[in-house]
């Protein structure tokens, strides 16, 4: 049984933003509900007012706009898989969507919700971090774009203010030479929460040097994180096996994992190094 709450059903985005402003304390937006309903049932989250943003036309759709891919916040994870633009422009995000929860959850869970919930293990976060994504936060007063890397503050903490709604996600269309991959280690093939995950995108020039490297990791810190030191090491150099091994080690160094029911901190640190090395080796070509 769910606890009692008030449920507001706006028909437009501006109505929703007005409701978020009015409600002040204990207000939470709800879309797919795949995290929120479970958290309310378990007593971990007790909002007194929910604003239903599922079905708001303004928050839907995936489009190409001014060199960016723009994803409406209530785009479901299943829709990421169905949209050719994602498979073509951002295979790293497509790969993460492929192993996200299970097919039933993917039909409800939204990209905006996955980010706003800010679980350290949110599976859309590492791929969006390596794509240099930004999130759009909108209130009655207006909109701001925030780099995703700055959006995450800690475990289930973000920059989003109570009167703001995460309305869209965007990232620059990667150049054609960019290659990447995502690997999620779970305790089973489907419907798993990440033990650790790694996303990688690298751009390698014709002379074989790495022009740009992005590496992000999930479930190994209080929030999804980038491996800045490893990225810096790779940029401007040829990705030799030795350099890749060194970068993978720096990835592990950047983590601060915890022991929990899924794995020990020591195992997470070890496995993240292995995953980073594998992904970077695959992209070496």
């Amino acid at each position, binding site marked *: 049984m769910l606890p*009692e709450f008030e*449920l507001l059903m706006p028909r437009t985005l501006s109505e929703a933003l007005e409701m978020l402003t009015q409600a002040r304390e204990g207000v939470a937006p709800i879309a797919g*509900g795949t995290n929120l309903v479970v958290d309310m049932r378990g007593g971990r989250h007790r909002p007194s007012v*929910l604003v239903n943003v599922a*079905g708001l036309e303004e928050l839907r759709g995936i489009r190409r706009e001014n060199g960016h891919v723009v994803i409406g916040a209530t785009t479901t994870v299943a829709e990421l898989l169905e949209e050719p633009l994602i498979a073509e422009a951002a295979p790293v995000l497509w790969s993460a969507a492929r192993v996200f929860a299970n097919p*039933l959850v993917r039909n409800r869970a939204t990209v905006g919700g996955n980010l706003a919930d800010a679980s350290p293990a949110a599976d859309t976060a590492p791929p969006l971090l390596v794509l240099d994504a930004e999130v759009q936060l909108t209130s009655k007063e207006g909109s701001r774009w925030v780099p995703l890397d700055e959006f995450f503050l800690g475990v289930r903490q973000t920059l989003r203010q109570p009167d703001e709604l995460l309305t869209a996600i965007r990232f620059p269309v990667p150049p054609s030479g960019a290659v990447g991959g995502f690997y999620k280690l779970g305790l089973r093939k*489907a419907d798993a929460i990440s033990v650790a995950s790694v996303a990688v995108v690298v751009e390698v020039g014709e002379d074989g040097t790495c022009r740009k490297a992005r590496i992000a990791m999930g479930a190994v810190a209080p929030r999804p994180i980038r491996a800045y030191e490893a990225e810096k090491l790779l940029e401007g150099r040829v990705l030799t096996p030795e350099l890749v091994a060194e970068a993978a080690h720096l990835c592990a160094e950047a983590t601060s994992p915890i022991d929990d029911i899924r794995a020990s901190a020591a195992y997470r640190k070890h496995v993240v190094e292995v995953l980073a090395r594998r992904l970077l080796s695959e992209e070496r070509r």
Partner: protein
Amino acid sequence: METKVVTLHINGRTHQIALPPNRTLLQTLRDLGYTDVKNGCEKGDCGACAVLLNGKPVNSCLVLAWQADGAEIVTNGGLGDQAHPHVIQEAFADAGAIQCGYCTPGMIVSTKALLDRNPHPTDEEIREAISGNLCRCTGYVKIVEAIKLAAERMAAAKEGR
């Protein structure tokens, strides 16, 4: 809590029902007598409560009933009944894909969604499609066989064989 009259089109029948905001679609369906929709984990992990919501398979335990206002819902029972079973239901019975039966309605709903968009799935695609449905009897081999049988029979019917 304030109630709201919600309209649900379930298995071709229209219901109008006053509900408080904290009712899930799962509870609502069961209260209306659609007890083929099973209550399992209430976390979106087991798929026993799966229904087609506007054609897509979802966990009804995670949908607030108000969010489904105006939606078309199909449960396992809406696909066929004992007198006139659906091809998928018949295939599950013929292949012995049912042990305790608790996961079956959800499995059949996920199968319907799979075969609607992919009439000739590979074994891997079948396993992927039912990866949100848990069978605690662990009878997955026969469930996969049943889905292949259903696909064959549906293809044969389409070709008029």
